[in-house]
């Protein structure tokens, strides 16, 4: 076939496509809302997410998905944690603390549940006891185990007695839902006091929230929200590109950012609390040696890693504490990237010829890419890394429960989780008596300043000890269509308040 004939053969389909494109263009032009740019208070916001809750009850599953959709939106706590990680009162209208710091007396706001049942002290007692109760496998249960007893003073007053002073108590309460004590099974239904009520739950597909017209606080800026869930990241991106969703709560694949940016979408970058770290089993040689741990740290070019994984977004950290926490110290260069120093440290520790270790790498997320990177970096200083890919399940069994590992990769998502270094039984086995004392004392501190000072000391120490290799802090990336406003930036611990989101 000559080239001219070929052109003729191709011309027809090309023209047909062009015609279709024009048609499609007209169609989308017609259906788009008025271009006034004024936010529409009645608009339903469709939120795309990959983080589908396993069920709807926060005490039956550590899924952060349920926090994302319900906390602050459908259920409210006695306190609210703002997007800037501050604690402010919510259902606790007034708080009184006894002099010894053991008894908290809360006066409740004049609120009601979606079912119409008014909020009473009984509901609070029920909710708190349920959260720390035997059945509960809530992610933050341990932090609230300081609760000794909950007492109903009168209908709108409740007193909580602690076993020991806990300065983070009100902060931790920010994650605990107050549920209706008469609600029954909450894994598939919901009854909270929030600005939205659960309208529809389609497992595997979506959760629809409708505006609660009788909300006791300020009315939301939108007409309801739908969380649309996608198991496949490509399907989620396609939904955003085709306008099926208005925003996505978290973008885990930076490769597609350029495409969204050029198509006029907003890229919203906040700080997350997710730390990618190489956990070292410090119970065993050679990781029981500080010099070896510091050597590994200095052998890894984390800047390059962050560039490769997150396209330069995100942050380098030198400890477990992200900048959003009060006891943050800039420790990014505490264990600097310096291969020569690494070699020196290894030689001093008696490993001039290097050594070999296995890193158990979960098969989820970016871990295997990170593992490959570490392998090539550490090879340069004579350390051989063997990568052992395991499932998340195996990780929980082998690493977390049995502590049968040398090194592992993990993304630790929680805020204020430096406390793990105060527990020598934790999977990495870091055991420093000073750190344990400081962290324990910090919780019993009487002022925030005192607490901050003590945790900062622990923070410095774990960094000096290179207790783990903190590789980087993930960025919190959200993508929203043009005209969408009020999207929370930081999303601490998957918190995602939707009441300020509007679209034009």
């Amino acid at each position, binding site marked *: 076939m000559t080239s001219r004939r070929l052109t003729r053969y191709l011309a027809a389909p090309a023209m047909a496509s062009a015609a279709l494109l024009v048609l499609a263009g007209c169609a989308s032009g017609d259906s788009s809302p008025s271009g006034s740019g004024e936010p529409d208070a009645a608009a339903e916001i469709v939120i795309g997410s990959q983080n589908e809750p396993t069920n709807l009850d926060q005490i039956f599953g550590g899924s952060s998905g349920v926090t994302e959709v319900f906390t602050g939106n459908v259920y409210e706590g006695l306190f609210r944690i703002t997007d800037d990680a501050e604690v402010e009162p919510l259902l606790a209208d007034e708080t009184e603390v006894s002099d010894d710091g053991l008894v908290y007396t809360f006066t409740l706001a004049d609120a009601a549940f979606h079912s119409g049942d008014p909020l009473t002290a009984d509901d609070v007692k029920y909710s708190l006891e349920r959260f720390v109760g035997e059945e509960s496998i809530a992610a933050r249960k341990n932090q609230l185990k300081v609760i000794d007893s909950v007492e109903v003073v009168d209908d709108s007053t409740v007193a909580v007695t602690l076993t020991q002073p806990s300065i983070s108590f009100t902060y931790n309460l920010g994650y605990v839902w107050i549920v209706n004590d008469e609600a029954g099974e909450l894994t598939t239904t919901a009854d909270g006091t929030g600005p939205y009520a659960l309208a529809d739950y389609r497992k595997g597909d979506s959760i629809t929230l409708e505006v609660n017209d009788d909300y006791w606080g300020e009315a939301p800026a939108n007409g309801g929200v739908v969380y649309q869930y996608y198991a496949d990241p490509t399907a989620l991106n396609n939904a955003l590109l085709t306008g*099926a969703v208005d925003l996505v709560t978290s973008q885990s694949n930076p490769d597609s950012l350029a495409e969204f940016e050029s198509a006029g979408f907003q890229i919203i970058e906040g700080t997350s609390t997710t730390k990618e770290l190489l956990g070292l089993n410090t119970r065993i040689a050679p990781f029981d040696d500080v010099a070896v741990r510091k050597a590994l740290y200095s052998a890894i070019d984390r800047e390059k890693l962050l560039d490769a994984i997150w396209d330069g977004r995100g942050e380098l950290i030198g400890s477990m504490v992200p900048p959003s926490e009060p006891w943050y110290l800039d420790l990014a260069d505490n264990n600097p990237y310096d291969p020569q120093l690494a070699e020196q440290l290894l030689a001093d520790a008696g490993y001039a010829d290097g050594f070999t270790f296995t890193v158990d790498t979960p098969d989820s997320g970016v871990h295997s890419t990170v593992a490959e990177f570490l392998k090539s970096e550490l090879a340069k200083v004579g350390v051989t890394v063997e990568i052992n890919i395991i499932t998340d399940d195996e990780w929980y069994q082998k690493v977390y429960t049995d502590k049968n590992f040398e090194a592992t990769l993990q993304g630790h998502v929680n805020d204020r989780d430096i406390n793990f270094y105060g527990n020598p039984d934790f999977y990495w086995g870091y055991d420093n008596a000073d750190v344990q004392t400081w962290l324990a004392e910090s919780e019993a501190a009487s002022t925030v300043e005192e607490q901050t000072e003590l945790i900062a000391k622990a923070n410095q120490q774990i960094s000096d000890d290179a207790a783990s290799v903190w590789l980087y802090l993930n960025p919190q990336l959200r993508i929203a269509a043009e005209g969408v406003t009020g999207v929370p930036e930081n999303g601490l611990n998957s918190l995602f308040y939707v009441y300020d989101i509007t679209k034009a």
Partner: protein
Amino acid sequence: MTILFVVLRVLGNPVFALISVGATDAEIAAAAARLGVDRPIWEQFLSYVGQLLSFDLGQSFTNHLNVGDEIVRRLNVTLPLTMLSFALSVLIAVPVGFFAAWKSRTWYGTAFSAVSQLGGAIPVFWVGILLVAVLSLGWRVFPAGGFPRTDWDDPGAALYALTLPVITIAIVAGSDLARYVRSATLDILGQQYLRAARATGQSFATALWRHGVRNGVVPLISILAIQLSTTFVGAVIIERVFALPGLGDMLLVGIKEQDFPSVQGVLLFSTALVLVLGFIADVLQRLIDPRLRDSLSGNRRVKAAA
């Protein structure tokens, strides 16, 4: 089913899908007790069989929804998707296969069968991704995925959502089927009875209709039954690509969350479906072809004589 039951339990612990970092050993044990997975496997199996006998597929470990109800809800998507894809694939395959056989000696007949070979060889998800790239992201004529939250309240919207997935599956399944239709037709065209019928003065079309179709359809029925099962499996895969909340999604999420009751329920249902389809195909074949009935009764006579 027994094997599946054991394998699921050997491979993973559902508790780990529920807990988060920070959980104590006591909490892990309590969660396992609540799910009942701390009991010996044989005990779990017996109680599962007991449940099945009372037509109860159990409750999901993770969301506590009734597995049976959930399967029925998911069939709202998977069943229409399967049936429409199957119907479309037959609509594609029969003329294409027939034409390819009829014109098998011409270049375009060969081209037809080559294209159908190719279509059958492409993975179904790949076709889906291509169609999304062109028709959804490029031309914006179809949605890239999802299903109306109102289910079938608005049949138009539901059908619109299923259009691309149906086309995707039909392309692959139809190409597969076209090859069978082609070989079945070639078979018939070469048969003596067709020539004999032509010799009695019947036109080619009449002869084919009277004798060929009836003969050709019998082997096709079992192929169609197999094809319907394959379409069902294809639907399960394609649900992922198009974010459709059907049985496939339930199965994959169930596996991810170690939700044994859901995984067992979906697989039990699918197995039963395939068996039922096979059975229906058998019955149909016997109704159409008297020879099959004869052979069956013939066997009986032989047995009786022995």
